């Protein structure tokens, strides 16, 4: 893995001539979590997909650059709200999916270590249908880590989980993805307040940079400043709608 770079995205996106987002500049700090918070339809997922080099259906005018000058899409790992586990493959096979699809030899030691780290060692040979939502998302996280990429793009990966599992997953992900440049796209102010080293609210009007709480991430769920930030973020989101 190359050292995690800064990422910068600047430009504008249109869908069939209609503006999806006005010219904006977004910078993701090297080795830090950037939370992009916004309601539905503001184009936050489009931003993430543009960085990943995925089909967006939008026309993007601008550029996406890494501080080390190297290309971006082949250095990202991607995790979505849907765990995207292949239902016919076992947990172990899903975790090593990237290597298997590329026809590389799977580093079994590393795979088993990651599975253990995600507390899935008892489920190695199970199929995804036999797992709970939280377990499945842990498999997806292990698969993401297995790719060992310096840039990690998370598209609302925890939003389908119940409150407790979501908080557990947030802690686990924050710990496991340390040192990587992470973009977390979310609609949950609480999640942004817990995890962001920098927090950006995206609305139709553009981006607003917000101050993250002072405590180191992941912050405690009952940390007062974190809760305050959560409230402030929600207020900002609601104002923009009005």
């Amino acid at each position, binding site marked *: 893995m190359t050292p995690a770079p800064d990422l910068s995205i600047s430009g504008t996106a249109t869908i069939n001539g209609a503006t999806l987002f006005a010219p904006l500049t977004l910078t993701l700090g090297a080795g830090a979590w950037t939370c992009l918070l916004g309601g539905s339809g503001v184009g936050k997922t489009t931003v993430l997909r543009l960085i990943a080099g995925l089909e967006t259906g939008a026309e993007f005018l601008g550029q996406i650059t890494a501080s080390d000058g190297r290309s971006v899409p082949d250095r990202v790992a991607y995790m*979505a709200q849907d765990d995207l586990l292949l239902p016919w493959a076992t947990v172990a096979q899903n975790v090593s999916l990237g290597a298997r*699809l590329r026809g590389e030899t799977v580093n079994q030691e590393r795979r088993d270590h990651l599975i253990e780290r995600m507390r899935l060692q008892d489920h190695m040979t199970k199929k995804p249908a036999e797992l709970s939502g939280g377990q499945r998302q842990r498999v997806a996280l292990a698969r993401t880590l297995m790719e060992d990429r310096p840039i990690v793009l998370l598209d609302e990966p925890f939003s389908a989980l119940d409150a407790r599992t979501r908080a557990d997953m947030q802690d686990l992900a924050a710990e496991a993805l340390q040192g990587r440049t992470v973009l977390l796209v979310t609609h949950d102010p609480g999640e942004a307040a817990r995890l962001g080293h920098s927090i950006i609210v995206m609305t139709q009007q553009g981006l607003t940079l917000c101050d993250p709480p002072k405590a180191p991430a992941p912050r405690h769920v009952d940390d007062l400043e974190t809760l305050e930030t959560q409230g402030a973020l929600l207020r900002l989101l609601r104002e923009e709608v009005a």
Partner: protein
Amino acid sequence: MRYLSALAATVFAIAIWQGIVSVAGLPKFILPGPAVVAETWWQSRWLIATHTWTTAIEVLIGLACGTALGVITALQLASSRAARVLVQPMLVFTQALPVFALAPLLTLWLGYGLWSKVAMAVLIIYFPITSSFFDGLMRTPPGYLDLARTMQVSKRSILWHIRIPAALPSLASGMRLAAVYAPIGAVIGEWVGSSQGLGYLMLLANGRAKTDLMFAAMLTLGVFSILLHMAVRRATARMAGEVR
């Protein structure tokens, strides 16, 4: 429970059949009753078995060839835009033609024996297999493809490791449909020209006003088709994701 309801339905159907025969007082050569048919079936069991064997061979070879052809076509269509533009409309057009009309031609080309019937079965099942598998291949959950793209996976590997496995349930439903159609194809082939098979036996019995034998052969074909369908259903259960 399922067996019980199948049994109840059978008993019910036989009762209605017997009822019609008794009430209308129809002669044996117009509509034989279930008891007569059963007796004829038992007396002609070896004759029926021989002809069933012939039809079964035709159907099984037809199923295998039709499935193979359909799978290959679907893969070609799914991986090449040119193939979709050129072949897909043709495929739909051939379905608009009554395949039965081709049966005499097939007999002319392939002869009186096994292969004209196999060809007929293939023609009938080719489209359901191709179209169901092709639909499955084109409807891979987009999230899987996104994930594979961020992993820098080749198109070939995506097809082989993601699109094909994800399309297997669709192929399974195509094959189950094919198991019902294939015997019909073989029998049509036999009607047009043959000296063996259940279709031939039905035609022969009909011509000699042996309606009871005709019914016995027809019911045997029905039972054979149901058994075949059940066997294919079971064989494709894993593909369809019904068992792990």
